[in-house]
């Protein structure tokens, strides 16, 4: 479904409530032609940046606004149909569009297209995700890049030409640097809020020692970030910070500990996303269902190793929450989860800007410029985790 990048998608973009106006959004190849036909307009009347007022297939008298290819939110041919918000009207319009060949959009699919078509950067999507009820594109990543470029030209001007042309001065640089710092911090906060973090599930049969481990992690070496109830059915889930990164620990008591039944397993597998990891604990070293053991990111712990001196089993790590045996390896496994990629990267940017300010304070403009160059490189890295973006998109509503 996702591989058809520009097929025609449609969705109601406003909340389902009685309102004066509702908006139905349509994007993809043929958007203009479809609406032109349904509104009985001449061919081309709704192509490019146009507007049409009229009857829509006998359903409503409405306004359709067309956005040109390459210049719309999604970057595709796109139409916003502004109809009356009376109950049922937007729904009937959507059905009509579906009859005419459009597909109902998935949550966040419009934004996803905007991202794929280069209208939004990965960071923009994450920023949007943190404030997705508004269409505010405020402090976007692009603005930061623009500001950084401006800063670069000021810095270079100061270095190369101030001796003969007096083009810039140090005060200007300090002001610009501080401005960038404020912007980057705002961006960081938004992205941090938006990011869905990779999780580590602690699982295994009853009395395998899950709760002991969980409490140990929860109580001592960790910082509680937040508690999200219900993420793993009846289990408890905590966001904690280990080894400098944020992860989610789920005590999956809800799976009952016995051999997972079909339904529970399906639920579990569907809640595991790419980047997530599982710690499977069992003092008896019995392998769980294949669906779990075949996953790559599983660490098998032979728990209660302190009072359980059976011979070692290959593939199982002897572990004890009491003696601390195997704890280092567990931490290593947890640390190897994907870093909270995007926010981690902006954290680095904020830290670098701080360094640039310090360098400028000590009259090392060349160092400031070097650091700003480094920031630009960080900000422009296109391989910014696409997983993080996909996860953020999942949280968008339909029509966004």
């Amino acid at each position: 479904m996702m591989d058809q990048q520009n097929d025609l998608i449609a969705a109601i973009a406003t909340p389902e409530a009685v309102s004066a106006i509702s908006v139905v959004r349509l994007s993809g190849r043929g958007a203009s032609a479809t609406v032109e036909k349904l509104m009985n307009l001449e061919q081309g009347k709704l192509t490019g940046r146009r507007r049409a007022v009229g009857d829509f297939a006998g359903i409503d008298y409405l306004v359709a606004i067309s956005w040109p290819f390459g210049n719309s939110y999604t970057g595709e041919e796109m139409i916003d149909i502004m109809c009356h918000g009376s109950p049922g009207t937007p729904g009937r319009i959507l059905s009509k569009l579906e009859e005419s060949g459009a597909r109902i959009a998935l949550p966040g699919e419009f934004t996803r297209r905007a991202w794929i078509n280069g209208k939004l950067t990965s960071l923009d999507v994450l920023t949007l995700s943190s404030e997705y009820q508004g269409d505010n594109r405020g402090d976007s990543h692009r603005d930061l890049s623009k500001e950084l470029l401006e800063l670069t030209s000021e810095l270079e001007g100061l270095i190369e030409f101030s001796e003969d042309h007096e083009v810039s001065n140090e005060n200007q640089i300090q002001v610009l640097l501080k401005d960038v710092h404020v912007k980057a911090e705002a961006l960081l906060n938004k992205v941090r809020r938006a990011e869905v973090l990779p999780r580590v599930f602690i699982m295994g049969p009853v009395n395998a020692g899950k709760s002991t481990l969980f409490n140990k992690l929860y109580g001592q070496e960790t910082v509680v970030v937040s508690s999200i109830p219900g993420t793993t059915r009846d289990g408890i889930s905590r966001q904690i910070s280990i080894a400098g990164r944020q992860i989610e620990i789920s005590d999956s008591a809800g799976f009952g500990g016995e051999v997972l039944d079909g339904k529970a397993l399906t639920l579990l597998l569907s809640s595991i996303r790419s980047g997530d990891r599982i710690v499977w604990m069992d003092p008896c070293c019995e392998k769980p269902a294949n669906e779990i053991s075949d996953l790559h990111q599983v660490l098998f712990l032979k728990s209660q190793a302190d009072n359980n001196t059976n011979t070692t089993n290959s593939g199982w790590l002897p572990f004890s929450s009491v003696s601390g045996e195997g704890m280092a390896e567990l931490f290593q496994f947890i640390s190897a989860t994907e870093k909270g990629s995007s926010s981690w990267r902006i954290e680095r940017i904020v830290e670098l800007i701080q360094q640039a300010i310090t360098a400028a304070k000590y009259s090392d403009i060349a160092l400031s410029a070097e650091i700003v160059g480094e920031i630009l490189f960080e900000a422009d890295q296109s391989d910014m985790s696409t997983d993080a973006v996909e996860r953020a998109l999942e949280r968008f509503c339909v029509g966004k």
Partner: protein
Amino acid sequence: MSEYQVLVVGGGHAGVEAAFAASSLGCKTVLITPSISKIAFMSCNPAIGGIAKGTLVREIDGLGGAAAESADRSALQFRMLNMKKGPAVWGPRAQSDVNEYSKAQSQKLKEARVHVIEGLVTRISGPTDRVSGVTLTDGTNISSDAVVLAAGTFLKGILHRGTKSWPGGRRGDVSATALEQDIRDRLFHVKRFKTGTSPRILRNSIDKTALSQQESHDLKFRFSWASKEMIRNREECWLTRTTEKTESIVKQSLGHSPLYSGRINGTGPRYCPSFEDKVTKFPDRTGHPIHLEPMGLSSRVMYLNGLSTSLPEEIQDRIVRSLPGFQNAVISAYGYSVEYTCFETGEFDETLKLRASDNLFVSGQILGTSGYEEAAATGLLAGANAARKVLGRKMVVPDRMNSYLGVMVNDLVMRGTDEPYRLFSSRSENRLNLRQDNADRRVYSFALDLGTLSKGQIADYENRDRLYESYKKTVENKRIKGKSLSDICKRPEVSHVDIAQKIDLDAGDLTKMGILETVVLDLKYSGYVKRAEKRYTVRKRYGNVSLRDIENYSTVKTITIEAREALNTRKPRTLSEAESIPAVRQADMDALVLYLMNRSVSRET
């Protein structure tokens, strides 16, 4: 048998270094100049160095060149530009005695046993692919195994002032018209560039009370490790500013300027602009700084730095007299511009050999550069490679991550230039490492490849290197109150002077202090430099995939016509070099990669 192994055409900054380098490789070398009294003459401002340029002079020293020592010997005043911008962009600059510098460089040629002949070269002998020497105006033939062209602004040089124009390489010199025609007849692609110079003023006609004195820096500096003495401040410089009257005179007279009336077709330097350009490009700005610099020790003549102009004489008089303190100023020589021929990008490769020839090299302004330092450094490279070619050794290319010479040569060949090319620190991807203090360390291994260093120079370097390693070890191992000294070095407020106290180094020993400074700065910047190098490699994602055996890009069907033309002229050696050519787009790169992959598959099967 040829009379000479290497023959250099031109006795300016490029020619002198070319001849000196060729001779240090042991080649029998001759230099031909139209005026023997103007060897390494400073035709424009009487100074050497500046931001990036001063660092380049220290690289020349590290590569065994002559300019650095002569700059020290002839210096009148020293300033370190960018003192408040960080050690990586400090720009050492010395005010020079023009005649002393010329004498010092002539002396260097004499010591290197370079034959200097006065004469004007009218053509190159032999077929282009293998030239055999040159012919002079009087018909004399001089044969040589390799030829280095270093003709500066002399190739069909035309001087302009106001509505007047006349042939000449610079004021008082002839134009090399016949040689330029020979180059055109050999079907080289050439272009016309222009540059200009300021009026000279009689010192005693200026009222100095109206000027501010330019502070000199008492920094104990020398460009060359071989100089026994530090630069002394022997002369004074002065600063004045243009007035609204100055700018309005220029604005009203633009119609008389050969630059603006269409008489000059050559492209001038954007960053060393004529005063006409400054007024046109920054119409709202007033009070442009003008530096007043002596042409020599107790010289009667002062140079007006910042006021390059080719307006008519009477307007130059009015402009000069509008400056504070210049009401009665007398111009001893008027400013002018010079238009000259240079080679198109693509005609030469990074060894500075012309691609169409086996033994014809180019250097200096005819490569499209501007500036004494740029000329000298390219001269050194061209001369050394010419000698290596003659001696049957492999020619070598400097790395842009290690030196400004490498940056410049790579830019000239791979990116090309549409205006006289001047070095800037920002042209480098590795600026924190391309500093003036560590120039010798950065270029040492390339200097060994070039073969220009004498045994004595190698021994001196090795002594310095031993000191460097020992200080580095001390700094890394010593701990003060539980903190390692190398961590203390990284603090922004700490300089090598503080470290010297902590390791009991005598602050009076300037050589030792200089080496400690490099140790400290290397430690300070090491993390940044490593990351810069990594970024450079990431950007160069096509790495060093060789394109050498693609003879003609017309066989690559899937690339655009522009890209094909550009690739055929530039002949990049690697994919990453191809990527840096503006006409080559991402799609062309993808097509090239596919082409290379398909070809290697068909070769394997």
